[in-house]
């Protein structure tokens, strides 16, 4: 599905990623853990195509129409249309932009690109309400401005709601667990798990192991100093929880 090769990236002249390699196949869930400043968020921004983050070496190959294509020169919206989704750690608040209208515009952009029929407002409303039930979200969400006055937990639910609606092939969940209490985490993880299939893949970026009890990964990678220093299965996450990161740095 996606193959990251020797990725080097910088922001504001600071080299953050230094030769990151990662291959994720269809149907797989990978987790990346790492201490603060290891490059986790930079990797998210690079995959999303943030204009302030620059790839200085390496490539990101992504399957589009059965061909591997380097996406680093693609605009963020093009990547999204090809099924890449980022659930942000800090979703932005946008006053005046209605949450459900925005999501319908987004959904229809993707439909349009993929040659599917766009959905009219009434059908979309039903579709949206059904998905909101999965995440136990309040109906009033539909009428609110995007993320404005949402609690930390509501913002994260909203990210996962968007993910479920847009049904991406490859998703990055950046610290989706931060700001969630245990009950909310279960609900959100349940939403994410329903999306798992042999056709799509996910990259779960997290600081703590606890999210991985709910979204169980096939592989766990430790990111440190801008490259992956260790890979393993889910036990590796437990080891990190137990012993911290320092033992891995040696």
């Amino acid at each position, binding site marked *: 599905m996606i193959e990251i090769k020797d990725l080097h990236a910088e922001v504001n002249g600071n080299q953050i990623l230094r030769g990151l390699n990662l291959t994720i196949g269809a149907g797989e869930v990978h987790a990346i853990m790492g201490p603060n400043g290891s490059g986790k968020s930079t990797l998210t921004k690079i995959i*999303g*195509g*943030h*204009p*302030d983050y620059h790839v200085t070496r390496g490539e990101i190959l992504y399957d589009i129409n059965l061909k591997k294509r380097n996406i680093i020169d693609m*605009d*963020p*919206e093009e*990547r*999204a*249309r090809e099924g890449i*989704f*980022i659930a*942000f750690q800090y*979703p*932005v608040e*946008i*006053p*005046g*932009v209605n949450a459900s209208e*925005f*999501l319908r*515009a*987004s959904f229809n*952009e*993707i439909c349009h*690109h993929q040659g599917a029929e766009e959905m009219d407002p009434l059908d979309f409303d039903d579709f949206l309400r059904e998905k909101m039930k999965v995440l136990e979200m309040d109906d009033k969400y539909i009428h609110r*401005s995007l993320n404005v006055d949402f609690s930390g937990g509501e913002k994260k639910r909203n990210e996962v709601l*968007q993910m479920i609606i*847009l049904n991406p092939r490859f998703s990055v969940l950046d610290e989706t667990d931060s700001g969630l209490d245990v009950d909310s985490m279960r609900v959100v993880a349940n939403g994410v798990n329903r999306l798992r299939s042999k056709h799509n893949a996910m990259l779960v970026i997290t600081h703590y192991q606890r999210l991985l009890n709910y979204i169980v990964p096939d592989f766990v990678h430790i990111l440190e100093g801008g490259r992956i220093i260790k890979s393993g299965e889910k036990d590796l996450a437990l080891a990190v929880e137990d012993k911290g990161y320092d033992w891995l740095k040696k």
Partner: protein
Amino acid sequence: MIINKKPFIQDYDLYVQYLATREKNAALQELRRQGAELFSRVGLPSKSSEDWRYTDMQFLNDHKFNVCMSTPRTELENMREYCTNRKYYSHDDINIVFVNGMFSSEFSDYLNKSISGLEVLTLQEYLKQEDGIQLDILRRNPFDHHFPFGALNQAMLHDGTIIKIRKGATIEPIIHIIHVTTISQPLRKNHCCEFQLQANADKKQNRFKVCSCDELITSPRTIIVAEDHAKAKVLESHFSLIPDIEYFSNAVTDISLQPRSELQYYKSQNESLKAYHVGLTRVWQEEESNFDSFSFMTGSALARNNIDLVTNGPRTRTTLNALYSVNGKQHVDNHTSIDHRHPSAESYQFYKGILNGSSRAVFNGRIIVRSEAQKTKSYQLNNNLVAGKHCRVDTKPQLEIFANDVKCSHGATSGQLNPDEIFYLQTRAIQKRDAIKMLSHGFADEILNKIPLQAVREKLRIFLTPSLLTI
């Protein structure tokens, strides 16, 4: 009588003589004389005056504005088409229409809708009433040298709207006062209205076979009185049917709110992009009255909008919200002044602006809290979205607080769209261009959504969308 040393109004003296032959009311003639006298003494403001520091009006001296006393038939046909087909004009409203500064009974429908508790009169109708002879309602609040355009409006006075909402009445439909300016290109140079024909004859200038309706001046005048416990919604619109005509609209609106009355007042200024609009809204608020206003501005090459509000009783509530969206070389200047003279008043001001191209915006918000006005709460905010590379915003709060137990705050921002917001929308498959459009609409909607009436919001959006398109 001299209106100005430079003749920026064509044939002013003849105009006054002409009006005097039409209506004999001595009080009205005296008002015109006083207005002209004050205006000729003060003249057009220049940058040397603090109130006009960012908006120099001297350029008007280079113009020669004409008065039009009748509108060509073809223009009225255009207006008819507009009234039939555009959402902006609705038969659900009570419509009072002026075309080129002249009252139009043809497009006004208030007479057909007799609504209990609502009295609508044109100035000409008012003159026929008992208290109209002395023009009390017009003489009550004279203009001063701070705002010479008020005096100019009075000097040019010949028509206007007087609205009274009677004691305890609640008027459900929107009272829509429409000021349309429309003279299409071929007619501008050779339309002859009745007054101009006479003016030419008087000057014995027979060599002028035609006269001109190019560069019209209109002087809309509106008076709104809400009596005790009365409630109403007024929309005052200024627009042109033709996007590129040059004219000068000099509007004055006086609003008097008696105890416990409530008025929603919307002013929508979408003049031609070559027009000049100067507007003065004066408000007097008595005890426990509520003035909820919204100013919406997308038009004019240069627009100046003043709101001067005075509280005349305790526990008043005032909201002055606004949205301006300008592009190209447009210049929009908003001056507000709220004079809190009595205790326990609340006032809220939220002005938002979107600037494109090389446009300019000025905001000056004056808040006065007098020593008697304890427990006043007054908040002011001016946010500008600067989308163009060569735009300029001058924003200035002006707080003069003489009471010690008050809560007042002010703030101003001007900045560009947040790149993280654009990126966020892009990661949701929305094109950068559309993301920018969506965000600027969002910026506008944040303030537009504070308008409680959906019908008004929808009307304003008609003018907003084209003004944002080029972002």
